[in-house]
């Protein structure tokens, strides 16, 4: 089982590398009609990163799902190609961050040998998560960039601690729900037509949720708020099976959104622009409008790599990188990208299904939801399915914090997958061992 999966992984990684290298060369050809001078080092670096990841999985999680790493590698590589196309300086940084991310991936696999061990630290994770969320609000180290106070600066480096906070909070919620899910599923208190569980059990959850939301709203980080909120609702529902929580969640969201709309000008702006960006096409709606023009230019098959005009799109290496892909690769390429994310989501949820401890199931579900919803929120924002909220496109957008956090997330999924497969293999072996004597007796 493990060997087949690793061979598949290796093959897919090579395929991914081929696609990325091809895209890199085509982009350079499209722009300057000559192959990039640094194609050799680039090739070496890419293959080295993939090889390190692959060897780490082979050594540390040999039975893990073979799709996760190649998909992440492909997205990371394509993201790099598009960043390099826009800005060579950022590309150099992104290459470094990719290496750091891969190091984080390996380190996570080394350090966390059993995902379930994390369950013990659930309250520490809660504290850590909230602390990380608060950091940017601390004077001196906290920084506001592009209207969102989600950065901290230490020396020459900037981080978005919120990226790590998401993982910590996912671990906390999963752990907490494992402990309390049965209590939460019982309804003892009646509130109007709704039966609610004992507030003592609901309390910590609501508190964590409320604090996080407040902090994020304060920092004007709507994307993360939305993301965290979805994570919370999905996990509570998956854990308890009570549809009432979904309704409650939607109700809370609607209430929160209405209040935020009333209270915060920037929330109102986002909604206005979402509903109709054209009256403000030159001002606040500029990003959305330019992205739409870019994607329309791409059409069905795209302008071709390196042949579009994505420099017109604002934030084209971060929030709007998807618009660049849609411009140069067209609907065909953009859809392929959507499929890549869906495959990643599918792999993650399959791991959740196969995991046999509730904590593993919830953690895998939570992490996958983070990944999938984050991709949905930003792509939806860029394409005007949702109001635009600035979050990164996982594995593709420029940014070290995001890459690192997503690679750690990936490592956790790989870890859970490895454990689940190992256990089911062991169980299959036990069954086989248990059966054979009977057969002997029978003969």
């Amino acid at each position, binding site marked *: 089982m493990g060997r087949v999966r690793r061979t598949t992984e290796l093959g897919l990684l090579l395929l991914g590398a081929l696609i990325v290298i091809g895209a890199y060369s085509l982009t350079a050809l499209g722009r300057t009609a000559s192959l990039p001078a640094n194609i050799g080092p680039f090739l070496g670096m890419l293959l080295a990163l993939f090889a390190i990841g692959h060897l780490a999985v082979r050594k540390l999680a040999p039975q893990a799902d073979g799709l996760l790493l190649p998909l992440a590698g492909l997205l990371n590589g394509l993201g790099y190609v598009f960043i390099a196309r826009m800005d060579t300086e950022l590309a150099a940084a992104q290459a470094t961050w990719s290496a750091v991310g891969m190091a984080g991936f390996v380190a996570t696999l080394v350090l966390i040998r059993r995902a379930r061990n994390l369950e013990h630290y659930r309250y520490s994770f809660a504290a850590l998560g909230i602390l990380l969320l608060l950091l940017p609000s601390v004077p001196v180290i906290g920084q506001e960039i592009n209207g969102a106070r989600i950065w901290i600066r230490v020396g020459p480096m900037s981080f978005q601690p919120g990226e790590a906070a998401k993982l910590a909070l996912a671990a906390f919620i999963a752990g907490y729900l494992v402990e309390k899910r049965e209590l939460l599923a019982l309804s003892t208190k009646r509130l109007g037509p709704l039966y609610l569980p004992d507030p003592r059990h609901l309390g910590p959850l609501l508190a964590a949720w409320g604090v996080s939301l407040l902090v994020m709203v304060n920092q004007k980080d709507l994307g993360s708020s939305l993301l965290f909120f979805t994570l919370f609702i999905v996990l509570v529902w*998956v854990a308890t099976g009570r549809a009432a929580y979904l309704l409650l969640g939607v109700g809370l969201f609607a209430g929160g959104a209405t209040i935020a709309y009333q209270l915060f000008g920037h929330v109102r702006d986002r909604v206005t622009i979402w509903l109709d960006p054209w009256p403000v096409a030159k001002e606040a709606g500029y990003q959305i409008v330019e992205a739409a*023009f870019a994607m329309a*230019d791409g059409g*069905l098959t795209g302008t071709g790599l390196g042949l579009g005009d994505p420099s017109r799109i604002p934030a084209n290496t971060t929030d709007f990188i998807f618009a660049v892909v849609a411009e140069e690769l067209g609907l065909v390429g953009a859809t392929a990208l959507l499929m890549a994310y869906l495959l990643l989501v599918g792999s993650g949820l399959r791991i959740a299904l196969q995991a046999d401890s509730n904590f593993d199931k919830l953690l895998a579900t939570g992490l996958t*939801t983070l990944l999938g919803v984050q991709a949905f929120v930003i792509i939806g924002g860029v394409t005007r*399915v949702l109001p635009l909220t600035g979050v990164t496109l996982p594995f593709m957008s420029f940014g070290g914090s995001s890459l690192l956090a997503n690679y750690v997330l990936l490592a956790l999924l790989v870890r859970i997958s490895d454990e689940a497969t190992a256990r089911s293999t062991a169980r299959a072996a036990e069954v086989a061992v248990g059966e054979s004597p009977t057969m002997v007796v029978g003969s």
Partner: protein
Amino acid sequence: MNGRITKVGLGLIVCFSLLFLQLTRIQVLQADELDENPENLRSIDRSYEQGRGIVASADGAVLARSVETPDSTFARRREFPEGELFAHVTGYYSFEYGAEGIERTFNDELAGLTEAQRYDRVSDLFVDRDRTADVTLTLRKDVQEVARAALGQRKGSVVVLDPRTGAIQALWSYPSYDPNLLSDHDTDAVRAAWQQLNDDPAAPMLARSYRERFAPGSTFKVVTAAVGVESGVVTATNPVFPQASSYTPPASNNPIGNFGGEVCGGTLVEVLTVSCNSAFAQLGAELIGPQRMISSVGAFGFNTALPVDLPVPAVSVFPTDFGAEITPGVFEDSARLAQAAIGQNDVAATPLTMAMVAAAVANDGRAMRPHALDRIVARDGEVLTRVEPQLWQRPVSPETAALIREAMQSVVAQGTATALAIDGVEVGAMTGTAEVGDGEATNAWVIGYAGTPGQVPSVAFAVIVEADPGIGEQTGGQIAAPIARSVVEVALGAQPRQAG
């Protein structure tokens, strides 16, 4: 719990399907609409800097081409190698001010935007090949150059066309301008040039040859004569107009005098030869009358837009109301009609229209659709368009045309246009000296045709040298005819072979 995890997956699939649907909307369904959105500088920039085909003259001179500009923010610039020579024909192509002339009329073909160019084959969906097409005009650089040289630094226009096909061979106006000034990438320089060109009282950007109207003066007598013959009120021999030095229209006290107060009269050929005002004023006001005049001039190109393939030609005008009939044959405005019949008063014609009048007479009464375009050829050699000669109007019968030609040849042989007599060439012409404003200054005109004797003439022309207050009176015979002669000689010299 597993059932719910599966539902989370389904939920995300639904979410991503929404993204796909929205992408399809943006990238396919609304793509054209977004492309044409006025906020979309992307398509404006692209159309400005993308390759455009070449505009060339019939004799192969490059009139407009796109040159790559590696050091600029835009990839390409439109270059007009002939500068001012063809400016009124090719027009300009400016990021700031759009396009004019041929650049405007055939923008889609030059830029490769017509449906035929965009989706020629299935592979066009995927491969971005060069879809631009080249435009070849019927205009000839040699004729255009001689027109410029002959007119010199005098305000005016020279129009030359082939009466058999309507193909325009020269369309020169002075003053002209350099369209390169407007296609520069330096926006400030372009704005300054635009401002300066528009502020210039001489209006160098005005294509006077087809966008400005002038009183046609005596050249309009060709129209009056043709209408008279066609309607049967005049023949070669009848009437014989009375010898007079002036003509006083009915219900008027203002006599219309002959040029220089001379006494003239006689048959149609005789009165046209000497450009006899009294005879033609009488012909128009009394013999032809308002209705017939008004209904007949349309076929010569008056009160109707010429179907030329250049943008927004000015409409030549002839008055359409001469008041009520007071007594039989006498109208309130008969005096005005008498003046209109000799090309004065409210008659105003573009030089192109007057060239068309001469061309219709030359081509046995068949006015061909005037055109500057000869063909459009795609990059792969496929001919997208080839302009075939097309009959536009039949103002007069061949017999009428023949009689008018006889008269116009007499003008060259012994009349006011002797400067146009060329050995071995059949030339017919009519001069005009139209008063402008207070009558001190005059527009000097000549229209006519030339060709091999016994064949349909191959050249029709109109030349106008505009009134210049400093110069005073100038006659068509003295001023315009020599210019026409130089141009006709070159135009007859090397006719480009007719395709097909």
